[in-house]
């Protein structure tokens, strides 16, 4: 335990830098992924014919292994191999792939009775979307976002294999085989980060769904 702490202090600045990289890579990809997935998911839920192709395409993207995606990005984007932007784009692609289906299912799961009532009250289509469908879908979409967050955070360390500097570098150091300390430290920090993201998103869901709070309080 004290060894871990010692190592942490000795390499504080590096670890801080890497942690920050991990955080903005994960956070950035989540936000970007959500922003892209919301309209796509809405289209898939609204226009039934688009659902199968969108979801299949999303599935295909998800099957591409992370390492492969990280590796292909420089070729596609014209960036350098070591550029962390590769990772950002790849993770965003994954997030989108995961969330499109979740968003589509979430929006479609709002009961027709509720929507019909809203229409009868005079809500326009767009108002129904923002005032009724989205709020009700928040728990479902939020759950998907949590899975994406946790997966993304732990996925980032793989980027070490292509040289991008983030917390995975601790694993590379440890792989030189002398001591377990950096590896254990890396695992701990990454898992804590993942749980932190999860908790923040969960909190966000709770804040945005006060009606569910009332149900829980009962």
């Amino acid at each position, binding site marked *: 335990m004290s060894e871990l702490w010692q190592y942490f202090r000795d390499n504080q600045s590096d670890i801080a830098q890497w942690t920050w990289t991990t955080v903005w890579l994960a956070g950035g990809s989540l936000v970007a992924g959500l922003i892209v997935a919301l309209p796509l998911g809405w289209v898939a839920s609204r226009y039934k014919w688009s659902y199968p192709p969108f979801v299949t395409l999303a599935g295909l993207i998800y099957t591409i292994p992370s390492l492969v995606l990280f590796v292909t990005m420089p070729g596609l984007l014209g960036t350098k191999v070591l550029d962390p932007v590769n990772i950002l784009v790849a993770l965003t692609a994954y997030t989108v792939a995961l969330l499109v289906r979740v968003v589509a299912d979430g929006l479609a799961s709002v009961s027709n009775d509720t929507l019909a009532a809203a229409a009868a009250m005079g809500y326009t289509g767009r108002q129904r979307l923002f005032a009724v469908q989205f709020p009700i879908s928040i728990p479902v979409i939020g759950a998907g976002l949590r899975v994406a967050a946790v997966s993304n955070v732990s996925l980032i*360390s793989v980027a070490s294999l292509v040289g991008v500097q983030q917390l995975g570098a601790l694993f590379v150091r440890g792989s030189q085989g002398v001591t377990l300390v950096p*590896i254990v430290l890396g695992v701990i920090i990454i898992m804590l980060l993942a749980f932190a993201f999860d908790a923040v998103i969960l909190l966000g869901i709770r804040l945005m769904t006060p009606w569910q709070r009332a149900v829980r309080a009962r």
Partner: protein
Amino acid sequence: MSALAFLADGNSIPPLSQVSVWLNDPENWTGPNGLLVHLRQHVIYTVVAVVIAIIIALPIGLLVGHTGRGAFLVGGLANGLRAVPSLGLVVLLVVWLSPKIHLLQTVPGVVDHRGALPYLIPVEIVLVLLAIPPILTNTYAGVQNVDPAARDAAKGMGMTGFQLVRKVELPCALPLIMSGVRSSVLQVIATATIAAFAPFLGGLGQYIINGAQVINDPHNGYPAMVGAGLVVAALALVAELSLILVQRYVVSPGISGRFKTSKSTVRAPDGSVVGTELAGV
């Protein structure tokens, strides 16, 4: 374990067109270091991990879904396992565990190197841990989604707990379970690339890791990395499609809804089959 030498300068990586050249070269496919060998290793690592994960996760998911108790455990376990960085755990286990496994053997049919087993076990442990969450959560969700009326009727008819799980809950939960297995297989295929990080194991990730060291080389560098990546993606696609096919055969038509204009058997009054005819909805 070899340290990876990273190139500071990626400006002269070969263009993507080189990838198809690399893939089309039969020399890269055959031979003891060829794609086919690595592909086989990759497939075996995946299958072993998923099978073990099913053996562990399916009973737990069924039990928790059936009794309704311990749902929090399922969610927490799945979430926790998802948060574990695979690469980190592989490195950790290889550094810590491998020296402790004193079995200097080859793994017959998979790797020809002596000393492969101590590295295979840690990697499989990591892959199994990765494969468990989708199967566990989907099994639990699948059982929970079984029509409560059907469950009540089954109990009321005199089925014991085991019979209920075996005859009703499991078949009805099958679509979701299969979906979880598919998800799991995809995750493992993707992550098995890091198996190459451990010595001797190979798998398709080998090309990626080796390629990173000679990245500008048009024969073994970047094109090899991307080429191997495409093979992995293709493997994943084939696996997904195969499992979808399996799902079609294994899941009862009554659940999947695939019975429009199916053939139905024509029966004699005593229940024996007489023939078949097209049945409408």
